[in-house]
Structures are given as structure tokens and as C-alpha cells.
């Protein structure tokens, strides 16, 4: 346990503001500490009935027949649906706001068509008076399966002659479609410079292979939805989601409804981390509602969450890097084979953008493979793909430093990416904070603190995430008492409604208590992309800033009209309208607000953005561990997280993101994995055995916020939600190596894995 006093540190803060950078209590706070906040499972409607989903027991099988007659005859059952109730998706594509995908992949995942592709794949659903009746009725549905051999890892799925999941999936090879039926949906490559020449120039070449296991986002609140297919044909959905517009658009596409007939209300959400972007149960609940004439609520069980939603890819990664004796990196090569799960779309492209992003290397080749396997269809998990990749790259970088006899942070600093460094996937970096994060790590007291005792070691690692922009909208209305109401469409998972309100307050010179923010449904605000991609504080914040400026500009014109002066002569400084036009006229925001109705009408400001100028974020860790040589248990003695936030709008919530991502990274590193038996059944589908970190597993997580302002945002903000999950597994592997001289190449590094590595090192055999 750590014993240092709590002093959040800010490095390189270059500007101070009135509201931005302070730590107000969040607007939804009272509701959330009293149990009043309405999460999805708390929703109730008159006539509500309950749905349950029947899931495949097989990892891979053909569906020969489904007989629902006995379930339909159950006295409490009001409706039954199967895949036959949904239209075929054909070749349609849909934009989920994070790239285009084939609708069939989603529709066939929502309810299996012809084949089940993983244990947990949804096959049918019922709605009944109570959830107990619905679960009973599931047992009455008779499904005849023809089991097929499953493939469970990328290397297995890529072999010639491997059992194929799809009879129409061909490999897109280096951008070109082929006729090759395969489990490899695509193979792409990024190239920079001349990789052969690069390795020829190297004095030291290191090459290793790594494996990472499937892990789940682990949000505490299971998926839930309540759907009403109303008598006028309009569908209303209340759901726990990161993206109400995504749910609306995808549900409408699956059910062949125009989006104008679907309204999605995002309820408060108990965690997402990427796993609550895809659609699972909303179209099913809507169909059950249509058939029964009742609103239908479905709440997933924890086992269904683990087996039937979207964990992150397991992966098989090869990395080879070359460096000169003077510490200059000259070549880097990676092969990233990622498990997509049942349908294509593994997050291997983002992985390829991040794997070597931290280093300025002239010769780089990256091969990425998107491979389907008989596991749940993967979804995004906080910086998807990058954590796996960093586990590989950072291992090799630290090993290089060790072999060259140089400090591991110095080696990184000497090769660190800067503004103008060209990434392997093409573009040059704008202003970024890689160097600043490394320097903060080097100068932090943790790095030079003595660490004594046997089986103890210190590790470091860094990572990069590019962050997203994407569309957001915001409306602001001025109240007669000088306060404002702010309406936006980004589900608030970690305090963002407040950080968005703070940005509007800053523009208008208002105290934060005078801003009333709300997250609203898809009928009440303009299109807003998902809460994800570390985008909300940046992009929805930018929308709020522009809406606030729109308010300011309209009020300037109004003050000018009241004073009878030209609007050009009116300025707005720190909440006061001033006209310097011979005599000076002054009016505060609160003095002007009550006059609006009588001087032209209410003022509403609005903005819609899809901003460029996204700033990527670098993150780093220093971690001290102690290994128990008898059990392989890894105890974390001290952990410090570093991250470039650009500008921490609300520092407490930036620290919170850094600490939360670190904790997830630690779980990923030391214990979490899907234990699959050879039949593709997850043997640990409960929170007892899918063991995430508890309060007793972690020390205090100290944070160091670096602020290298993002030129693309008025306050300099960079997204911070994701990059923090990238370094922990790599940093822990480094620390474990320094503690007991073993080289961990597999995740998780659980006690069994650590002991086996120690025994192997000591030449111990059975």
C-alpha cells in the first residue's frame, strides 16, 4: 500500500481559466449517491412485461430447426421471436459512427441465422409476465443443432483446412478482394521506408512472439433495454448505451424502419468501455413488444454478458525491432493476428496505428490480420487493439535498453515521436506530448525512489491512442435569471455532462452552478456520435463552446439594440457586456437575461460539429512489484500513471480516467482471461472466476497529468479516456522481469504463468 500524501501534480499547465481546471461537484451527483438516478434496469412502464434470450450451447453448429410451439403455449408467455422474424440483411452496410460495417454481421449476431458461431449466440427470445416465467419458457423452445468443429485462436483459424465459420467470407488481401474462402477476413499492410535495409543497418535485432487472451470490459451494469412498439408504429427504447444514435440507426436498419420512427432514450449507464456500443437486445425487445402489444424489458444476466456480448480480441503478435549501438531505432516489424470473434471487425487497424506510434523509426512494416473464431463477436475495449500491441513492443524496447545498457526511459526519449514524425500508416504527427510524458516519468520521485528487497522490481512502459473527433450537437437556452440550460446527446459515463457544462460556463463567464446540463434522447438533440473514442470532452465540449459563443454573439447584438449602438462596439469580458462608445455602457449576463423576452425573444444558441484537430494522447506507467516466489502472486507495491490531457477540464475526472484505465490494465495483465475448454465453452463466466481487481488488489494509483495543449481545441483538451489502459500490462511485465528475471510473453501473467516461468528459468522439471 502506498503511503505518500495525495498531491495531484500538473506539469506544463500554461494557461489558467475561471471554471475550466476546477473541480466542481457533478450535476448528477445527488441522484447518484442517493439511489435516485434511473439506470436502464430501473425503468418501468405501465403494462411492462419481461423478456429473456435463448442462447446457443454450442460454439459452432448449424441450426437445423427451431420449434417454439411449447413456449408459445406457456400460459404466461406473451410473445416469442426467432431469426425468422427479422428480414435478411443482404449486402447492406451501416455507419455506426466508428466506421462502416455490414449490417448482416450485426443482424446475424442479434439473432443467429442458419448457424450459431459461438456459445452464447442468441437464437430466440420470449416475453412473459415475469422474468421467472420467461426463463422457464426458454426451456420449452426446442432447437435442433448439428455441431461443427470450433476454432478458438487466430493461428488455429488461419491454418489451411481449418473449420470455416462463414461460407461466404473471403479474404481481402492487401486491399483487394479475393475468392479465397477463409477465416481471415482481411490482411492489410502499412509500410514506411525499406525494412530490409533497416535491419541490415541494425547492430542489435530482437524478435519475439506474444499471445494475449480474450478479456471483457467488465462493466458492473449488465446490458438492459426496455422497448415499446407503439400502436402508431413508432418504437421507443430506453437503454443502457454509449450511443443512442447508434442504437437508433442500427435498430431501425435491422427492423427496416425509418429512423424517424425510432426514438432512443439513453438511461444512466453503469459503465461501457466500448462494450455498450454494439446493438444486442434492443431490436429483440422491440419485436417482442410488437408481437405482445406490451412494453418489454430485457436485462442480461452476468453469464450472458460474458458469453453473449463483445469482449476484446485475443491476439497472436510477432514483433521484430532493430537498433544501433548508439540507441537509434532503425527498423520495426510487426505481425498482428487478432481474433474478431464470430464476425469480422477485430480492432486490428487501430492496433496497427499504435503499435510503433511512440517511436520515430525510419523503416517500418506492419501486417494486420482480422480473423474470425468461434468466440463472441468482439467489440471495442478502451483503446481497442493497442494494449495487446504495446505488450509486445514495450517488451522489446525495454529488452533493447537492457542489452545496450541504457536507461529504459532514455532509450525511449532518444527515439520519441514528436510533431512532424511520420507514422507508419502515413500522416505526420501534429503537436503531441510523447517527450513530455517521458520527461515527467523520468523526473518523478517514483522513478528514483529506492526499491529494496528480494523479488522486487520496477517497470516502465508507454502507449499512444489517437482519439476521435466525430459529430456532436449542443443547444443552450438562456433563462431569465441569468442561468443557462444546456442540452447534449453524449451519455455521461464518467462526469462528462459537467465537463461539457464547464466549457460553456467558461465561454459565458458563468459560475458552474448556473449551468444546468442534460443528456437527452435522439429526438431532442442533433446527431451525436457515441460516448467513446475519448471524444466527448473534446468534441461535445467543442459543440458546447460554439453553442455558448452563439449565445454570446446573439446577446451582444441584443445589448447593442438595447443601448442603441452598433453591435461592433460591444464586447464581452468575463461575463460582462461592455460598449465603449463615448460613454461606457455595462451590463452583466444576469442583468441582460431577464430582458430578452421583451427585446426580441428568447435566445437559444446551437452548434453542430464534426471537428478536425483531434489531439492524440500519450500515457505512461511506473510500477513497482513484489513476486511471491512460492505462489507466483504479483503484488503491486506502487503505481504511478502519467498522461497527456492537453488541458484537464475537470482534473478529478481526468485522474479518475487514469486510475480506472490503470486498474483495468492491471486486471488484464495479472488475471483476467476467458478460460475456454476445447469445445469453446467459457468455463469462468461469473464474476467469481472472471476475476477483476478488487479494492484489496490495488494500491493507491498516483497520477501525474501532463498538459501539452492540443492546438485543435480552444482550451487545449485532448481525449483522456483510453490511452491509460495501454501501458499497464507492458509495465508490469517489465517490473516482473526486473524482479525475478523472467520474460513474460503471454497475458495474463497469473500466478500459474509466473511460477511456470520461474521453474523454467531455474531448470526445474516435473
Amino acid at each position, binding site marked *: *500500500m502506498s503511503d505518500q500524501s495525495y498531491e495531484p501534480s500538473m506539469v506544463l499547465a500554461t494557461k489558467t481559466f475561471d471554471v475550466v481546471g476546477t473541480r466542481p461537484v457533478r450535476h448528477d*451527483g445527488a441522484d447518484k*449517491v442517493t439511489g435516485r438516478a434511473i439506470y436502464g434496469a430501473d425503468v418501468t412502464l405501465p403494462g411492462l412485461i419481461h423478456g429473456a434470450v435463448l442462447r446457443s450451447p454450442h460454439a459452432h453448429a448449424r441450426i437445423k430447426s427451431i420449434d417454439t410451439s411449447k413456449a408459445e403455449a406457456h400460459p404466461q408467455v406473451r410473445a416469442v421471436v426467432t431469426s425468422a422474424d427479422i428480414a435478411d440483411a443482404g449486402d447492406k452496410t451501416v455507419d455506426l459512427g466508428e466506421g462502416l460495417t455490414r449490417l448482416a454481421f450485426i443482424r446475424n449476431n442479434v439473432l443467429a441465422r442458419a448457424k450459431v458461431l459461438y456459445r452464447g449466440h442468441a437464437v430466440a427470445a420470449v416475453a412473459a409476465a415475469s422474468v421467472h416465467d420467461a426463463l422457464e419458457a426458454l426451456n420449452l423452445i426446442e432447437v435442433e443443432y448439428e455441431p461443427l468443429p470450433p476454432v478458438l485462436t487466430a493461428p488455429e483459424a488461419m491454418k489451411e483446412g481449418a473449420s470455416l465459420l462463414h461460407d461466404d467470407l473471403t479474404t481481402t488481401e492487401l486491399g483487394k478482394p479475393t475468392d479465397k474462402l477463409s477465416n481471415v477476413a482481411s490482411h492489410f499492410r502499412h509500410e514506411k521506408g525499406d525494412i530490409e535495409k533497416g535491419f541490415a543497418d541494425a547492430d542489435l535485432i530482437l524478435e519475439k512472439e506474444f499471445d494475449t487472451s480474450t478479456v471483457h470490459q467488465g462493466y*458492473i451494469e449488465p446490458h438492459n433495454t426496455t422497448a415499446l412498439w407503439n400502436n402508431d408504429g413508432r418504437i421507443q427504447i430506453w437503454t443502457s448505451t454509449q450511443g443512442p444514435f447508434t442504437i437508433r440507426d442500427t435498430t431501425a436498419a435491422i427492423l427496416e424502419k425509418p429512423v424517424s420512427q425510432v426514438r432512443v432514450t439513453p438511461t444512466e449507464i*453503469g459503465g461501457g*468501455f466500448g462494450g455498450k456500443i454494439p446493438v444486442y437486445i434492443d431490436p429483440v425487445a422491440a419485436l417482442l413488444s410488437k408481437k405482445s402489444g406490451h412494453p418489454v424489458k430485457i436485462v442480461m444476466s452476468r453469464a450472458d454478458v460474458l458469453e453473449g456480448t463483445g469482449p476484446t480480441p485475443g491476439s497472436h503478435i510477432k514483433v521484430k525491432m532493430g537498433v544501433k549501438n548508439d540507441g537509434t531505432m532503425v527498423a520495426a516489424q510487426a505481425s498482428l493476428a487478432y481474433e474478431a470473434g464470430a464476425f469480422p471487425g477485430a480492432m486490428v487497424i487501430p492496433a496497427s496505428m499504435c503499435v510503433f506510434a511512440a517511436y520515430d523509426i525510419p523503416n517500418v512494416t506492419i501486417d494486420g490480420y482480422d480473423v474470425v473464431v468461434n468466440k463472441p463477436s468482439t467489440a471495442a475495449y478502451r483503446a481497442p487493439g493497442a494494449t495487446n500491441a504495446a505488450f509486445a513492443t514495450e517488451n522489446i524496447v525495454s529488452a533493447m535498453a537492457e542489452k545496450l545498457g541504457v536507461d529504459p526511459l532514455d532509450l525511449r526519449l532518444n527515439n520519441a515521436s514528436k510533431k512532424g514524425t511520420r507514422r507508419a500508416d502515413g500522416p505526420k504527427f501534429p503537436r503531441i506530448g510523447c517527450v513530455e510524458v517521458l520527461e515527467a516519468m523520468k523526473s518523478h520521485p517514483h522513478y528514483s525512489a529506492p526499491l529494496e528487497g528480494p523479488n522486487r522490481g520496477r517497470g516502465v512502459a508507454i502507449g499512444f491512442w489517437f482519439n476521435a473527433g466525430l459529430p456532436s450537437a449542443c443547444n443552450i437556452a438562456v433563462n431569465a435569471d441569468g442561468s443557462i440550460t444546456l442540452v447534449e446527446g453524449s451519455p455521461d459515463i464518467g462526469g462528462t455532462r459537467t465537463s461539457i457544462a464547464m466549457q460553456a460556463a467558461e465561454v459565458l463567464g458563468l459560475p458552474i452552478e448556473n449551468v444546468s446540463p442534460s443528456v437527452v434522447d435522439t429526438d431532442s438533440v442533433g446527431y451525436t456520435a457515441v460516448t467513446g473514442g475519448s471524444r466527448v470532452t473534446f468534441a461535445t465540449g467543442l459543440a458546447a463552446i460554439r453553442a455558448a459563443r452563439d449565445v454570446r454573439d446573439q446577446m451582444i447584438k441584443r445589448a447593442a439594440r438595447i443601448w442603441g449602438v452598433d453591435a461592433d462596439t460591444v464586447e464581452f469580458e468575463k461575463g460582462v457586456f461592455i460598449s465603449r462608445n463615448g460613454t461606457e455602457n455595462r451590463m452583466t449576463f444576469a442583468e441582460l437575461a431577464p430582458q430578452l423576452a421583451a427585446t426580441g425573444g428568447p435566445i437559444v444558441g446551437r452548434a453542430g460539429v464534426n471537428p478536425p484537430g483531434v489531439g492524440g494522447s500519450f500515457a505512461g506507467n511506473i510500477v513497482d512489484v513484489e513476486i511471491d516466489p512460492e505462489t507466483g502472486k504479483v503484488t503491486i507495491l506502487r503505481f504511478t500513471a502519467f498522461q497527456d490531457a492537453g488541458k484537464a477540464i475537470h482534473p*478529478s475526472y481526468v485522474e*479518475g480516467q487514469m*486510475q480506472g484505465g490503470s486498474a483495468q490494465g492491471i486486471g488484464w495483465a495479472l488475471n483476467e482471461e476467458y478460460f475456454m475448454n476445447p469445445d469453446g465453452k467459457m468455463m469462468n463466466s461469473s464474476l467469481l472466476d472472471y476475476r477483476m481487481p478488487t479494492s484489496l488488489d490495488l494500491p493507491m494509483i498516483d497520477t501525474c497529468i501532463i498538459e501539452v495543449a492540443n492546438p485543435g481545441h480552444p482550451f487545449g483538451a485532448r481525449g483522456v479516456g483510453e490511452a491509460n489502459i495501454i501501458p499497464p500490462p507492458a509495465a508490469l511485465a517489465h517490473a516482473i522481469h526486473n524482479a525475478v528475471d523472467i520474460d513474460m510473453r503471454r497475458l495474463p501473467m497469473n500466478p500459474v504463468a509466473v511460477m511456470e516461468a520461474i521453474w523454467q528459468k531455474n531448470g526445474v522439471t516435473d
Partner: protein
Amino acid sequence: MPRKVQVQTKLNGEQVEFLCEPRQSLLEVLRDELGLTGTKEGCNDGNCGACTVMFDGRIVTSCLVLAVEAEGKEITTVEGIAAGNELHPIQQCFLEGAALQCGVCTPGILVAAKALLDQDSNPSEEKIRFWLANNLCRCTGYDKIVRSVQAAAEKMQEAR
């Protein structure tokens, strides 16, 4: 259909009565029959702590308690922590200390933390972590939660 059982219990300081099926858990009845949705379901098998309530002076996972067992007992949920309109120090410290992000684990953690502070006015960091070890949080990494419990302990001591 199974016959419902009539249960009388003291809930958040008030006598209440409800009907339930023998197979229903206390968690289900609190949420679906009594309309107290503050207590959350995360796993329904006692492994996440989101459903933590006080049950005759002990903290329990209400998903593993049958509703019929509530007969004659005293139960406190998150809805019973605030004194009327005034937040309890633990709630206030959680807000000021930003000890919640998504907030879904918060009700269970508040009940558990209050139970700790009611019996130990100055718990060590280790004791706080041990006491909260059955309350999973996936968002915060527990740092600000532990610090907020420490702050609440201090605040409650000052009030004495």
C-alpha cells in the same frame, strides 16, 4: 402459480409490508415490488456487491437473500443513508472526492462504507480496502473511493 407470502419488515426506519413469491430474492423485491431501485444487480450471485444492503446489522448481498427472510428484520438500503434532505458525510465526501464515475457500484459501496464507519471511526487504508473487497468497481480503480471514506471518517469525527 405459487402462492405469495406476506412479509413484514422494517425498511429504512419504516415498517413496510409486501407480498412475494418464495423464489424471489430480497434484491428483486426491493427493486420490483417496493420501487426502491437504488440497490443494483450486477451479477445475481453475490460476487459484485452492487446489491449490498444492511440486514440486521450486517452487510449482505441482497441477491443471495430470499425476500421471505426479511420477516421481522431491519434493513437499510442506499435510500436510507441520507437524513431526509441532508446528505450523509459519506455521500458528501464521495461527491467532493469524485469517488464515482458511472455510479452503478456506488449504492452498494455507500452502504458498506457507512457500515464500516458506524463501527470503526478511524479505519486504516488496509481495513477500508478489506471491508470493500466484495464491492467491485470497474471505473475508478478504488483510489478516490478509499480517500473519500477516509475523508468521511475525518468529517464524522469532527462532528462529534
